[in-house]
């Protein structure tokens, strides 16, 4: 399967917005840059009132979406609840991908093999891509999902991009926002990731 659109494709990143998942989030941003994708995410946007409309638009305008369903525990705030947003957004992506004339492909990620067969049996037969929340494992999962006809990144290239993004993330935290799951940090992180891709993928010839 090969994309033919000359515009860089958008990729919707759907991960838990939690400190525990910061490295996963950064790895998806860096990995998207490494494959020439432009990531979008439902990061907090105070200017936007209707979150559901915004998420629907973001997913439907993206050609790909990454759904990390590995957060399956109850949160700590009372009343303790599971976070259902990730599964809900996957449902939206599946519906969008099945609409007539749709151009959307979705990928599911988890940290425990075969767990989704039980937790979300409607996906029966679909094997999620497994990672262990380390950037290395997320990059390997992305390498299994994507290839490029030209300027194919290696694992070393992807990790070099990640390393730069991680340092820029520390700079953002030091300078203006402890929360990376926000509109401005997200844009800044991807700008840095894209610059890192130009630098570390030799065939791009930075």
């Amino acid at each position, binding site marked *: 399967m*090969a994309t033919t659109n000359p515009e860089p494709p958008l990729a919707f990143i759907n991960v838990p917005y939690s400190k525990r998942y910061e490295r996963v989030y950064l790895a998806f941003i860096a990995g998207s840059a490494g494959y*020439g994708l432009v990531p979008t995410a439902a990061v907090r946007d105070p200017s936007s009132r209707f979150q559901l409309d915004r998420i629907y638009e973001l997913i439907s305008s993206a050609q790909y979406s990454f759904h990390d369903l590995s957060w399956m525990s109850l949160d700590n705030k009372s009343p303790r609840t599971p976070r259902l947003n990730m599964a809900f957004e996957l449902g939206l992506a599946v519906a969008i991908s099945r609409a007539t004339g749709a151009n959307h*492909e979705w990928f599911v990620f988890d940290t425990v093999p075969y767990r989704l067969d039980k937790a979300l049996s409607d996906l029966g037969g679909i094997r999620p891509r497994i990672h262990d929340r380390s950037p290395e494992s997320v990059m390997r999962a992305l390498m299994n999902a994507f*290839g490029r006809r030209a300027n194919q990144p290696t694992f070393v290239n992807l990790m070099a991009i990640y390393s*730069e993004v991680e340092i820029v993330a520390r700079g953002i935290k030091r300078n203006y926002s402890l929360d990376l799951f926000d509109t401005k940090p997200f844009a800044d992180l991807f700008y840095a990731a894209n610059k890192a891709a130009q630098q570390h993928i030799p065939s791009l010839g930075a």
Partner: protein
Amino acid sequence: MSGKVIITTPFPTPQEVAAYYKIPAKRVAELDEMINEVRRSMAKTAARKKSTSRNGNRKSANGSRSSRAKK
């Protein structure tokens, strides 16, 4: 869920990324400076690692103990 996807579109340029995210020119300049700083510090760290010997000690600027003894 999809099988392996082969992407054929070009990589976005930093200018295209800045335009897509509506990053103002001033912020782009700040980010470029931050990225250059990151690269300088990474290069420095890599050079420091390279000059570290296998047992974890830095290489002596005066040469090894045996070569000093010969002097």
